[in-house]
């Protein structure tokens, strides 16, 4: 179980002990820790699945997954697990829970008990999802669950229903978590911590929470309709009864596109903190950075049908969605250039978190420019459902998010556990992982350009070459991932003691003012944030405590 593997704190404070401390926890730090542990377990499961997929694709011909339905189940489960049970729990539930209250000077989240139920709903969702793969024949629908393939006629067993319930439950947990973050950030900031002084990580979580709050109910509604179509004879998506399968696609992507920003926005926040800390400079263009995230969030809701260019939507709709999607490149460009400008003139130490931040920028630019290509409805004819798309979204969202998570882990692990990670080993881990993912995903652009479709367990022999290279990359990535788990073990077992601020003058946010590991209760007395130099202080987002 998740709580069993959690990190023991050294302090002697008054708090529940044993299993009650974790199961009944209302403490934002303990809940954050549980989220991170859940994410690390789910990442192993989802990672193993991706390695099985790459192993199957290493050569043309069916290698070892002779039941091709099982291959589809792997593809589906890999997507679901990575999106809902690795990235979201780690970034929002894990680092969000841990550091939003610490950064804004709040003693805890606004609704501590709701925080507890958010976590356990997420954990229950994960268990339901695991069950969905073993009851019946497993869902082989892809994470997009398009009906009629996901309808009762083509997936008669209970597995899709389990998947739907898993997402319902995890979604409910995320909605509650989002409400918690919004209320905490709006109402529990310390005196002097104005909105425009909040660290960018807090901004990123705030925008993400709004996206969750607005997008997840749409998914829940769509899933409920699918559930009643499957079990109670309704016809929302059944053509034979007058329904429309495209309705699902519109609803799913109305949720699904904001969902990819839900995944990447917290990463933006994390990267901003890390870059500023290690460059020893305030974030460049703070307001532009904050409002770039807000505008990405807003525009993210009006671009969904660029996932549906091939479904037969009218040419005028495609033109609109092309232009709207291209517009997103402007705020994301602002973010990239502002990070570079933050580093410009800095005095940079290339420690592991900074390496991951710079790796993130490279991955995000790579995936971002292919996104600009894919945004064009005309050229998407050649790219839709090919490996080009697989390469694009792994670069821009999946691996970029993982880089931010690794960076955040190295950045904050001293604060969370009181033990610092081994720097040399961490740098080796970065390079292995960085080389691995690029060898893994870069050749997939070539495969996609040459027309290889996604979600296939076997491919025409002409695609053998780059697939083989890609699978080699998967092996290197696997080595990097396992090395990370070893670094985690090494840090917890024998990491040296971390100072309350291990990063020096660049680390100016409030979490570095409390001891390492952070005590069970922090900010019991409200810190007061000093204004600093006038007219220019608001731009820093880096408050200093008054004491």
């Amino acid at each position, binding site marked *: 179980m998740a709580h069993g593997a959690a990190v023991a704190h050294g302090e002697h404070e008054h708090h529940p002990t044993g299993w009650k401390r974790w199961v009944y926890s209302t403490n934002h730090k303990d809940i954050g820790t549980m989220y991170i542990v859940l994410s690390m377990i789910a990442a192993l499961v989802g990672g193993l699945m991706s*390695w099985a997929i790459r192993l199957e694709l290493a050569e043309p011909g069916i290698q070892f997954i002779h039941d091709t339905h099982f291959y589809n189940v792997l593809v589906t489960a890999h997507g679901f697990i990575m999106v809902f049970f690795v990235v979201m729990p780690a970034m929002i539930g894990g680092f969000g829970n841990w550091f939003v209250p610490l950064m804004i000077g709040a003693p805890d989240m606004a609704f501590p008990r709701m925080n507890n139920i958010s976590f356990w709903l997420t954990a229950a969702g994960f268990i339901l999802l695991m069950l969905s793969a073993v009851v019946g024949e497993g869902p082989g629908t892809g994470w997009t669950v398009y009906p009629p393939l996901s309808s009762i006629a*083509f997936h008669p067993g209970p597995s899709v229903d389990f998947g739907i319930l898993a997402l319902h439950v995890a979604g409910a947990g995320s909605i509650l978590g989002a409400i918690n973050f919004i209320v905490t950030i709006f109402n529990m900031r310390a005196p002097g911590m104005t909105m425009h002084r909040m660290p960018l990580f807090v901004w990123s979580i705030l925008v993400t929470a709004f996206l969750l709050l607005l997008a997840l109910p749409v998914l829940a509604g769509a899933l409920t309709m699918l559930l009643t179509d499957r079990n109670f004879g309704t016809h929302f998506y059944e053509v034979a009864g007058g329904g429309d399968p495209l309705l699902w696609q519109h609803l799913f992507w109305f949720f699904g596109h904001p969902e990819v920003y839900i995944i990447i926005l917290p990463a933006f926040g994390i990267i901003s903190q890390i870059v500023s800390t290690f460059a020893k400079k305030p974030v460049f263009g703070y307001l532009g950075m904050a409002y770039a995230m807000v505008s990405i969030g807003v525009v993210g809701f009006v671009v969904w049908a660029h996932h549906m260019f091939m479904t037969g939507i009218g040419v005028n709709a495609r*033109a609109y969605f092309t232009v709207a999607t291209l517009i997103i490149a402007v705020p994301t460009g602002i973010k990239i250039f502002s990070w570079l400008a933050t*580093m410009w003139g800095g005095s940079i130490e290339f420690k592991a978190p900074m390496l991951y931040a710079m790796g993130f920028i490279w991955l995000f630019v790579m995936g971002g420019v292919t996104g600009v290509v894919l945004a064009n409805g005309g050229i998407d004819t050649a790219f*839709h459902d090919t490996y080009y798309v697989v390469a694009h979204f792994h670069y821009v969202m999946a691996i970029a998010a993982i880089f931010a998570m690794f960076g955040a882990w190295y950045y904050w692990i001293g604060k969370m556990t009181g033990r610092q990670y081994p720097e040399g080993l961490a740098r080796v881990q970065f390079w292995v992982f960085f080389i691995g993912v690029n060898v893994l995903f870069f050749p997939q652009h070539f495969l996609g350009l040459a027309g290889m479709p996604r979600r296939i367990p076997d491919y025409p022999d002409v695609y053998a070459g780059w697939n083989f290279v890609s699978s080699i990359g998967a092996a290197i990535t696997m080595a990097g991932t396992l090395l990370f788990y070893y670094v985690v073990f090494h840090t917890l077992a024998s990491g040296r003691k971390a100072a309350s601020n291990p990063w020096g003058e660049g680390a100016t946010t409030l979490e570095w003012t409390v001891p390492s590991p952070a005590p069970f209760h922090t900010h019991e007395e409200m810190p007061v944030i000093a204004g600093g130099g006038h007219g220019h202080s608001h731009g820093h987002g880096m408050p200093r405590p008054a004491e």
Partner: protein
Amino acid sequence: MPMRDMIRRLLFSMPMVCAAVVALGIAGAAAQEGNVGEARPWQMGFQDAFSPVMQEIHQFHALLLVIITTIVVLVLALLGFIIVRFNAKRNPVPSKTSHNTLLEVVWTIVPVIVLVVIAIPSLKLLYHSGRTPQADLTLKVTGHQWYWTYNYPDQGDFSFDSIPIPEGDLKPGQPRLLAVDNPVVVPVGATVQVLVNSDDVIHSWAVPSLGLKKDATPGRTNETWFRADVPGVFYGMCSELCGVNHYFMPIEVHALPKAEFDAWVEKAKEQFATNSHSPVRLAANGSQDAAR
């Protein structure tokens, strides 16, 4: 998955992959006489274009590739310069600059200009591929789990199924996972209106070298069009996850000169006569019936 196993597997398979690639290269060279719409081993770009739309896609992508490569190189160069110039050793005292209004305006305006440069040819391509040209011929495509049915309403309304050829039955020159028993045939130079439909789940009818891809959605007819500029064989694969055999649902298009096409039509009318009005399939293949 034990790592050692995987590495061993990958290392052992290396010679086989190389041999396969070389063999394919030779086979590909031999087959070069006709036009073949298929990828080549180690291909890094698009398949050759054999239709006007695919040619436009090629041209537009050439522009995009220049733009995106420039952006990536620019960011990479900036990162490199930062690493060399602004590391803690070389630059011990960090600057405190955190604003530059001019710079911020520039890096907002310049991307907007770049996007306009992209959007204009993009919309041109979109409207060209999305317009409804005067068709010389209508081809109806119906997706099934897991084969395609083709129907020629203007040539006597005959229909036939296009079943993928299993690996063991392939004749020399037929690519694995791409060849079918009855390819769809069109005349060279004719504008073909394609109506795409599905009988069960969502499929997608795609031929990369002709710049074609359209979802086959049940209960809804989608339209696209193409014109094969040269005689040849063009391959494609189903491009929307449709179940167990999704990977084995190929599309094979033959473009023939008009006279040969007419001869084929006469032959096909006889061969597939029993299939006339084939959208009706008396032996329903069950999945929907069984569920009710």
